[in-house]
């Protein structure tokens, strides 16, 4: 057999047995390439440190307690902002999705403000609220809110009319239909909105921290630039990617597996 095919079948078999491998192995060539380019000294070491340098810097920043503290700041900000965004976004989305009147009144406004991106708010927020938590929270809530609202509207409207009718002829009241038909029916879209919202929110937070910054991963990276420490900038980037991987793999994917996939609402 072709050795390439053999390797591929081996890869498929092993990743099926240990799914963790599937999320780790694709990074091996990327890391290897990075290490080779760095070791070849095509660029000065201070411009492009290798993976080992970044791991060592990770060790020292963790040891000094800076990274854990900053990471915690960022994650707590994101969690609070996202929770507020979701708590506002889902009810608003349900309202706009279910009521034709609310849709007429609010949809144009939603589209208008969606276009004014998170960062575009920063100048005026800095004047209103200054360099602080209020500004950052506003930016995250704002960023999370729109994907959640727009996708919830989409989800609510995608629930087949025949399911509304079935529930009505089984005697369900409007609130019960909302709770037992509309919300679960909209869940696949709500999860999509949540995923987009958290993704955008995470990016917006890092950007806000760079500008507003007193702490957080974004601040760490921007501060490192001031000190000319490329290693710490790279470390910040790696941490951002890894953290998203964890949020997606440990929270969103299991949620989807338990709900929408089991219900047959999306293809497995």
């Amino acid at each position, binding site marked *: 057999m072709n050795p390439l095919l053999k390797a591929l079948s081996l890869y498929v078999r092993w990743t099926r047995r240990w799914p963790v491998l599937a999320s780790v192995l694709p990074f091996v060539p990327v890391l290897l390439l990075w290490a080779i380019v760095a070791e070849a000294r095509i660029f000065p070491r201070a411009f492009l440190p290798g993976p080992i340098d970044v791991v060592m810097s990770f060790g020292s920043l963790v040891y000094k307690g800076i990274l854990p503290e900053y990471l915690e700041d960022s994650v707590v900000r994101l969690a609070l902002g996202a929770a507020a965004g979701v708590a506002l976004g889902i009810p608003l989305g349900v309202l706009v999705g279910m009521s034709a009147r609310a849709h007429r009144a609010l949809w144009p406004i939603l589209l208008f403000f969606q276009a004014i991106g998170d960062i575009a708010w920063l100048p005026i927020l800095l004047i209103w609220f200054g360099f602080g938590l209020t500004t950052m929270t506003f930016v995250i809530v704002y960023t999370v809110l729109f994907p959640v609202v727009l996708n919830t509207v989409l989800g609510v409207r995608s629930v087949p009319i025949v399911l509304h009718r079935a529930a009505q002829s089984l005697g369900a009241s409007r609130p019960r239909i909302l709770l037992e038909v509309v919300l679960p029916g909209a869940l696949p879209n709500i999860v999509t909105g949540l995923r987009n919202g958290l993704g955008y929110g995470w990016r917006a937070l890092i950007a806000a921290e760079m500008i507003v910054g007193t702490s957080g991963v974004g601040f760490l990276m921007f501060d490192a630039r001031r000190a000319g420490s490329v290693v710490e900038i790279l470390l910040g980037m790696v941490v951002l990617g890894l953290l998203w991987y964890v949020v997606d793999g440990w929270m969103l994917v299991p949620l989807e597996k338990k709900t929408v996939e089991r219900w*047959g609402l999306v293809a497995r």
Partner: protein
Amino acid sequence: MKSLTVRGVSKTYFDPYAGAHVTALHDVSLEVKQGEFVSVVGPSGCGKTTLLNMIAGFIPATSGEILLDDRAVAGPGPDRGVVFQSFALFPWKTVLENVAFGPRMRGLPLPECERLAREYLETVGLAHVAARYPAELSGGMQQRVGVVRALANHPDVLLMDEPFASVDAQTRMTLQEELTRIWLERRPTIVFITHDVEEAVFLANRVVVLSKGRVSRELDIPLARPRAWERLIEDPQFKALSKQVFDLVRAA
């Protein structure tokens, strides 16, 4: 006694593509007594689904009235159970939760709802899939769930909208036989919409032929029960009745 009366019902709606008003139903009257099994048969576009949607209360009639005993129908309600062509099971509820939904909405205590749901699932041999989700079942099984979900809510009238049109031919025959068996055991009042002439004759006590939005003919079906395809497929009376209905539908 709960009987269904459809009196002089018409339905006109505006068709934006044709740019004109279209009459889907014209002065339709129908009387269904308690415990009767009535099939409404007609070619596609004859207005049979419109009629069912109005009896169910999903869409309002333009004129005329629909009465359950002497109470006018206004909107959907649990007194009229509906079985849909697309099954319309809740994908996020297990089979048991789907069947228990109606009783739960009526406010029965949960254990009672589940006991009832289990009992009804047993009548169609589906007790073993109670904990599964609808997407994990075959089409035939899903529609069995659809039927018992409506029955478990004890409706005064069971409205069935081409319920077996989207399952394969073998399963369809089994489902038809099961439905006649259930009807014999529990005597629910059934209005069954279909475009399939033999299905209409096989199931019902009375067949109503609908054409171009009007009732063109009503026909009693005096075939003996229990009915089984094995016997009826060669039965001269069944063949003659089917031919008669077939000609009426064709002439429509």
